[in-house]
């Protein structure tokens, strides 16, 4: 039971990270109807930028951890958001009204570019960082000596996720930008006729998605203590799985899907086999799409004849 509780905590933390990435997928899919294949790599870039910023700050002699975290968060969000904007501008905007396959291949190409750009720029080796946030709480000490722990970093990951999610839900539901986004989601032509700047709205969607992916990247760095250039691919597919599981286009769905995928992956590794944890995640994607094509919170699609 204690073991299970511990896995539950670990799963929720991992799930929060997936959820943050999944939001980027779900928003972009909702508004332009394409899978942004490069999004996983944006997450990876976010992790790298967080790492580099952190290194610089520390080497400057900064020691106040909360201040460091705040600066790292802001810098990586800002720069990664610009990456998101640039990717949209270069690879997707020229293909906005093109054939369906062209943007998808362009996105796959962009994903290769980002992965290898990062490899060329920062080398192929894994970058470890020493634990930045240590300590935690012991929740329960079992009879067999097994301890259920909640570390500070886990608390930070979950709180950051919740705060950002709240902020973001407010942004989409109550601001002008959010309204424009929902309008573009429904009907881009009509939205532009009504004075919505479609290009700008779509750009902003990519920017917000990338900023959230940067947060996920930073959390990943803090939690696992490492980044490498290839981490975007698998994390990207799993986050997309989460978005689909929750119902693509739905923000709470993305978060819910992320949590479920995180839990499933952790529990599977804990009770069955670590080697096949990715197989489990991908199998779930297939099963969900077959039996629940619109996801848990998605809107059903009615076929028009």
């Amino acid at each position, binding site marked *: 039971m204690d073991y299970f509780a511990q896995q539950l905590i670990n799963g929720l933390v991992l799930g929060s990270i997936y959820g943050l990435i999944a939001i980027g997928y779900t928003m972009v899919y909702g508004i332009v109807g*394409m*899978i942004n294949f490069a999004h996983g790599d944006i997450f990876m*870039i976010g992790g790298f*930028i967080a*790492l*580099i*910023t952190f*290194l*610089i700050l520390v*080497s400057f002699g900064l020691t106040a951890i909360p201040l460091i975290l705040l600066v790292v968060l802001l810098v990586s969000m800002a*720069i990664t958001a*610009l*990456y998101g904007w*640039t990717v949209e501008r*270069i*690879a997707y905007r020229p*293909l906005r009204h*093109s*054939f*369906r*396959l*062209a*943007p*998808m*291949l*362009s996105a*796959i*190409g*962009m994903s*290769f*570019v*980002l*992965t*290898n*750009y990062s*490899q*060329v*720029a*920062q*080398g192929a*080796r*894994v*970058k*470890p*960082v020493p634990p930045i946030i240590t300590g935690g709480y012991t929740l329960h000490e079992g009879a067999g000596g097994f301890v259920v722990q909640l570390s500070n970093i886990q608390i930070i990951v979950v709180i950051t996720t919740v705060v950002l999610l709240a902020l973001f839900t407010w942004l989409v539901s109550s601001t002008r930008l959010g309204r424009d986004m929902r309008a573009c989601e429904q009907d881009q032509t009509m939205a532009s006729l009504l004075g919505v700047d479609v290009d700008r709205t779509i750009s902003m969607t990519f920017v917000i998605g990338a900023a959230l992916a940067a947060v996920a990247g930073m959390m990943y760095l803090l939690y696992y203590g490492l980044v490498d250039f290839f981490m975007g*691919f698998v994390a990207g*597919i799993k986050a997309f*799985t989460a978005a*689909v599981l929750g119902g693509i286009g739905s923000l709470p769905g993305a978060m819910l899907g992320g949590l479920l995928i995180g839990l499933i992956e952790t529990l599977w590794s804990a009770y069955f086999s670590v*080697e*096949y944890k*990715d*197989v489990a995640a*991908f199998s779930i*994607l*297939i099963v969900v*799409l*077959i039996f629940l*094509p619109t996801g848990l919170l998605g809107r059903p699609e009615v*076929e028009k004849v």
Partner: protein
Amino acid sequence: MQTSRAPGVAFIFKKALISALVALVLFSLMIGVRTEAGSDGQLTYWTRFGDLAMMVATVFGGSIVVELLRQWWGPVGTVRVVPPQVTSALSLGARLVAPVLLIFTFLVPVIFYNERYILDLGILVLTYVMLGWGLNVVVGLAGLLDLGYVAFYAVGAYSYALLATNFGLSFWICLPLAGILAAFWGVLLGFPVLRLRGDYLAIVTLAFGEIIRLVLLNWQSVTGGPNGVTGIPRPTMFGIPLSPGDDGLAAMLRIEFSPTHRIVFLFYLILALALLTNWVTIRLRRLPIGRAWEALREDEVACRALGINTTTTKLTAFATGAMFGGLAGAFFATRQGFISPESFTFHESALVLAIVVLGGMGSQLGVALAALAMIGGFELFRGLDQYRMLVFGMAMVLLMIWRPRGLIGHRAPTVFLERNQAISSDLVKEGHG
């Protein structure tokens, strides 16, 4: 056309400046700072401001050049970038290009007999031509987006490798078996997922491809895990080995043995397999099943209203494509003599899909040309090693922007009464599934 419309130097300069600024922010940390783990595991970093400055300057200069080119060409548009004359010349020449290309391919081993490198490259290109033609059935004709095609390639390769190493079956028995097994897997995957549409199908096939790879990687007792399968038998010419021994082909023909014989044999083997794929595909297009595939791509609802069983139609497309992938996989295994899961990553699927889309979905010649361009172009950057994939990714993005519909976008009708005229790509649909 007067130049009054041209925005002038100030505009170009401003635009380039903005691009350079964006580049500066993007590259500031990723290029300007290099991190590396030291021998003690501690991360260190050093700055590379020289490289950073160079990158930003490149973007600035590049932006000016691009803007100037744009003005020189007038309002940018893919139609303007590729003059219509070129397109029509391409389609006119197409009838001529194909036979010339085919004859040349037949002669490659004769012309380049002593150039082992070119022969190897030729085999590689032909392998991708075959894979492209196989995937073309699924993506180009039936309009089903398959991002996990490499899975069938892997099934074919492992089928041959395992059957040959464990049971000693010969290549010529295993080849059809590999095709059948791959087709079987195609049906197995296809059955549940073909109800899905568009991007959902794409992501599920991608997941399927990854599952196959992960299973190959982790099922150590059967597949050898990351070490793969070694000692896969080389193909024989219908039972006659291509070896220096007394029973080898060279000894039988009383000619001096040369390892090139085997390379030439492999070259003609993959050429034959690729041509088989092409022949079957062309043939199928003119049969009701092939027409149903294309109709499915055009309008699935209308197909159902005409009494076409869309599920079996999709399944046959999937199985046919998978079968060709499996055959190519068996060839790959026998050619390499060694296979491991590393050869079957998502990157391969993306490469084959890029070949199909760049070729102009559905065009057999286009796919062949695209395979030649992509694999050949990829080889040009062999020396650059780690920049290779970077350039490849950029090329994919640029090619899509340049020609979203591929090299040969028009469609040839499968039957005609009077005139056999090509159909413009603007009318041809891509399918939803």
